[in-house]
């Protein structure tokens, strides 16, 4: 990119035309890709009669908030939203704390067995959570944690990916900083808290976003660990709208979907640079 002597440098008239054609083509593709997002946003504000009318339309002609009021009567929607927030937020907080502590020990403390534990953690990266779901459920049930936040959050309070990801980041931080602090008499915990953590904010933020989004969006986990409608999350709660057979209430479903997507979409748009760049690096590691 430093040697930018090619096409982009001096656009001529032929170049200008192809530029516009390219932009138009990509714009069309983007519009097609975003159609489902648009249909959620527009349908949420459509009156039921318009939703079931033929021919179908994209934009509503008469805007209404009826779907939003109905979602709160058809489902304990406020509660579901709170549950989603506490579940995803709780998992994120715990995982960040526990993962970073473990990652610090693995990155900075050369104790006996360091490598063994690291290898075990990397190996467990390969285990999909679906593979351990049955015994984990049995354990959670024995603890009396079904339908509780403890059951939703604690099994995910630490995870191998987070530990490995943070460990790799901590290793890349220069050692001089924490050695200097140790010479000054700082305890390991103090080194961790006031040297490593402040320098690892980008990695911590990336992990926080990933953990929050994954848990907010997860369906199987809340489906398994909650059985009452009151303890479900938005994602699992909305699936209750599609009862077996019968007409699907698209209006309420799209209103609920819009509310489910909104916090993540806003978070993503605010932090999109970091978000996208952190994804980009996963393939280059």
């Amino acid at each position, binding site marked *: *990119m430093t040697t*930018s002597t090619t*096409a982009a440098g001096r656009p001529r008239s032929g170049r200008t035309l192809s530029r516009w054609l390219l*932009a138009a083509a990509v714009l069309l*593709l983007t519009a097609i*890709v975003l*159609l*489902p*997002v648009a*249909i*959620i946003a527009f349908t949420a504000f459509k009156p039921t009669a318009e939703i079931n009318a*033929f021919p*179908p*339309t*994209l934009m509503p002609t008469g805007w209404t908030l009826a779907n939003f009021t109905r979602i709160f009567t058809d489902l304990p929607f406020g509660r579901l939203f709170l549950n989603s927030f506490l579940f995803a937020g709780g998992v994120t907080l715990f995982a960040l*704390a*526990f993962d970073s*502590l*473990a990652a610090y*020990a693995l990155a*900075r*403390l*050369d104790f006996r*067995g360091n490598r063994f534990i690291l290898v075990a*953690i990397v190996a467990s990266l390969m*285990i*999909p959570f*679906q*593979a*351990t779901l*049955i*015994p984990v*459920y*049995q354990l959670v049930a024995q603890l009396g944690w079904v339908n509780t936040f403890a059951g939703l959050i*604690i*099994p995910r*309070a*630490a*995870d*191998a990916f987070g530990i490995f990801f943070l460990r*790799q980041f901590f290793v890349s931080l220069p*050692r001089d900083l924490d*050695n200097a602090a*140790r*010479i000054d008499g700082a305890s390991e915990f103090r080194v961790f808290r006031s040297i490593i953590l402040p320098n690892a904010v980008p990695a911590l933020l990336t992990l926080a976003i990933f953990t929050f989004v994954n848990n*907010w*969006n997860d*369906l199987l986990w809340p*489906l398994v660990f909650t059985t009452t409608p009151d303890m479900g999350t938005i994602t699992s709660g909305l699936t209750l709208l599609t009862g077996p057979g019968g007409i699907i209430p*698209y209006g309420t479903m*799209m209103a609920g979907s819009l509310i*489910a*997507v909104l916090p*993540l979409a806003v978070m*993503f748009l605010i932090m999109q640079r970091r978000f996208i760049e952190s*994804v*980009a690096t996963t*393939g*280059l*590691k």
Partner: protein
Amino acid sequence: MTATTRERAPYRAPAPLGGRPLRRRGLAAKAFLFMLPALVILVAFVFWPMASALRLSFTNASGFGIEEWVGLSNYARIFTDQRILATLGNTALYTVLFTPTALVAALALALLLNNRLLIARGFFRTALFLPFVVSLAVAAFAWTYLLDPQVGLLTYWLRALGIQIGNVLQDPVLAMPTVVAVAIWKSFGFYMVIFIAGLQEIPESLYEAATIDGAGPWRRFTHVTLPQLSNTLAFVVIFAMIAALQAFDQIYVMTGGGPYRSTQSVVMELYQEGFKKLDLGMASALSYVLLAATLILSLIQFRFFGRREKDTL
């Protein structure tokens, strides 16, 4: 820790760049304290359940106390019972449909977005990545509405173009490609971003040299881009395949595994055997089949990336 050990630390041989941490006394206990919370969670909710699932897979456990050792019969049933064997076939079909399509779509868009002639590349990148933050369940709701045989907008538009798709979610042949399409819609942006990053790593000089040698756009793609991108490609292929093995959310929402079990994936079956029929033995055996498939793919990936990981591990 005493003052002497602290003072001794600086006299140790300085750690080489990115080298081993300093070894000091009492470190194991300290390290153990740091790792304790995470290790308790991982042992209780990952490692122990792994062993437990293996044991359960050799029993007919139902969760109600009665539990007999049945040897390999759960595994034997997976590979002989046509109903369950078909779920392996469905997941294989899902993986075969998902991986190449998602990959080609992601790579094509990455190439378009990496073209410096394109204006507003940042905007397009963000817009195309947006589906990734939408949950598969919500994506499934939107697509169900778009594909509704009566009031679906997409059904209507396609009919205007002369394409009758009918009720795709009730069609034993079309239901599977449809749930795959939803997964592709959600995740191509993720792979696209990885590809863009990979493309930007390719030195411009390679393209200049190829152009001087008279290579056209297609030859530059096949002789420069693809070989230079091979590591990224390998990573994305394996990553996509592992994700495909775990297909569940949009299937649960859109088809419930139907029609005629044509979209019943391994994880759908695992969920129903374990949590609806309470056949914990069978569900655990299925989870080990899933694990075996994932492990094989992961090991292939480790072989690919082992050389590069070694210096950081």
